[in-house]
């Protein structure tokens, strides 16, 4: 597969780590009846960061992504993105927020089955402002789908469908990309293609928050946050790509490992 660079040369490069946070989550609580899915979650995301959000099923990962993306509302707490508190937005402001600032990539792809690959990408332009077919074609070319423009989703492989979804998520140049297990339904080869696209996005300065269960995928992120029963149980910022292959004591690095204090215990049980 040949892919062109994903990012427009005019896009800003990755921001320096000391830049003010792009996203601030402050004591976020979400309740579904008597169930508390998020229980006082607070953390910041710097511009250009790639965060892997991990944790067991039911830990609140998708709820967190939904609130960040304006798909759901928080019961308590605040979420500020680029200085705008999205918990105070009304429905029509949330619609604009989703159209302009967020790019969603779902595990189930969520392509409209009766629209072609090109039309699925143009749909995001249509809801954002004005459709531009040449720009949509260009976006699909960048994810290696130049020869699949007029294909319906049913005629595309899982990996191809996910690449259409990524092109759709990027077409309006969002500030934050929210990916909910984007490789969860893909085979190994397609997983690699999709992750390479995310690497390129990260390198070009996009902020990515990715839910994943796969530690190998999580290693691509610069930071890992683990949720358990709505609480943050781990928030570590080591660079997985450059992680040491051996623990400090010379033992092999654990497969789930990282260089955090928790993993130090794994190296030396």
């Amino acid at each position, binding site marked *: 597969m040949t892919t062109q660079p994903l990012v427009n040369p005019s896009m800003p490069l990755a921001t320096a780590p000391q830049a003010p946070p792009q996203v601030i989550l402050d004591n976020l609580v979400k309740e579904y009846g008597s169930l508390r899915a998020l229980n006082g979650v607070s953390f910041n995301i710097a511009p250009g960061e790639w965060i892997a959000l991990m944790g067991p099923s039911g830990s609140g990962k998708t709820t967190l992504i939904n609130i960040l993306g304006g*798909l759901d509302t928080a019961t308590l707490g605040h979420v500020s993105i680029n200085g705008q508190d999205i918990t105070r937005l009304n429905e029509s402001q949330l619609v604009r927020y*989703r*159209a302009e600032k967020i790019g969603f990539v779902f595990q189930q792809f*969520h392509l*409209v089955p009766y*629209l072609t690959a090109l039309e699925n990408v143009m749909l995001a332009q249509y809801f954002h402002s*004005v459709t531009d077919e040449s720009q949509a074609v260009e976006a699909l070319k960048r994810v290696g789908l130049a020869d699949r423009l007029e294909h319906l989703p049913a005629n595309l492989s899982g990996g191809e469908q996910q690449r259409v979804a990524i092109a*759709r*998520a990027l077409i309006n140049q969002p500030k934050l990309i929210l990916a909910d297990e984007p490789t969860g339904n893909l085979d190994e080869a397609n997983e690699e293609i999709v992750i390479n696209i995310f690497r390129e996005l990260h390198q070009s300065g996009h902020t990515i928050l990715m839910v994943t269960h796969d530690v190998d995928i999580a290693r691509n992120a610069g930071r890992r946050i683990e949720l358990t029963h709505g609480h943050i149980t781990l928030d570590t910022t080591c660079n997985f790509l450059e992680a040491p292959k051996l623990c400090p004591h010379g033992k092999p690095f654990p497969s789930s490992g990282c260089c955090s204090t928790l993993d130090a215990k794994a190296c030396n049980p």
Partner: protein
Amino acid sequence: MPNPYANHSMFRRLVRRLLFANRGRLFVVLLALSAGAAVSAALLNLQTDAKRRINSEFRAFGSNVLILPKSSLSSADATFSESTAKEIPENSPGGRVTVSSAVYVAASVSLSQSGKPLSGIVAGIRPLAYLVARVVPPGADPTTPSQLNLPQGPVCISGQRIAARLGAEQNASLVITNGDRSESCTVVSLSRTGGPEDDRLEIDLHQAQRLADLPGHISAINLYVPGTPQQKADYVASLQKQFPDLDVRPLRQFTEAQAKIYSRISGLLTAATAIILVLTALCVMAAMTNIAAERKQDVGMMKAIGGSARGILNLFLTEAILLGLIGGLIGAAAGIALSMALGKAVFGVAALPRLIVYPISVALTVIVAILGAYPLRRLANVRPATIFRGEA
């Protein structure tokens, strides 16, 4: 530079895709809408035509308004000028008015060959077309005597009872005398109404005027005024104003019976149309509920990528309007054809296609399609996270 019309083009593209997303389902929805439009158009056309049909049926019974001299209540031979009939407005709010002038003479009638003379009332009526309207052969023009296949010379219509007393049958020649004046006529029809007309002989007005020695005078003007009771009342009031010296009398019994029959038929057809439209809306709603279930994830995704409830709703409503329009155009055309057949079955004559019924039926079908799309409208307002959690 982005094309400013690109979004209109994309909108049309999306609606086209929505329409043809599932051809089987499209066919079912169109079928339901077309069937509803066909039946409602047929009933509406029958309803509209029923008014004309009932008017025409009642017209055959004769007049529904009488103009008499005011003195006629106290004097049997009071008359007024025949020229009054020419001053009566031909058009009423309910349609064209039929006018006939009459003069009544007490005379002696007998069969021309040595018949026994009998005393009776002879009514002279004009125009001739009015007199012979009841014996017009099918397809003939009642205003053209040559088409009516009538015998040569003066003609008359005899009431059933007087004919029996005279021993007269159809085509019998009668002699009518009043003092030293005499006229003759050929019986073209025997009438039986069950009323006083059965003891009466109807002849041409001018013959009756000669018998009574009242040239240019008439005893009454009979009018058939079509329309609703209110339209008739308005017309009668305007006539009374025009002829203050005459007595303009609506024959209420007749008018009210006509109104009652029309009102019942109209009510029945309106109720049937409403029921058909409600059933159609329920059928469409059932299909749309399935569509809403199918499109749930699509709607969630559209909202997730920035689609507003209004924007998504516009797509679905346009789809529903187009379905209603197509179903309505096809169905209403079929329905009007159906009403012609039904009219023939009910009244014996095909109902006239009424152009106004067509746009009304199409509009009603579009409204039904929009109402039937309620499940889609509801879906457009659901929060995307609710859809993705499978709670919508």
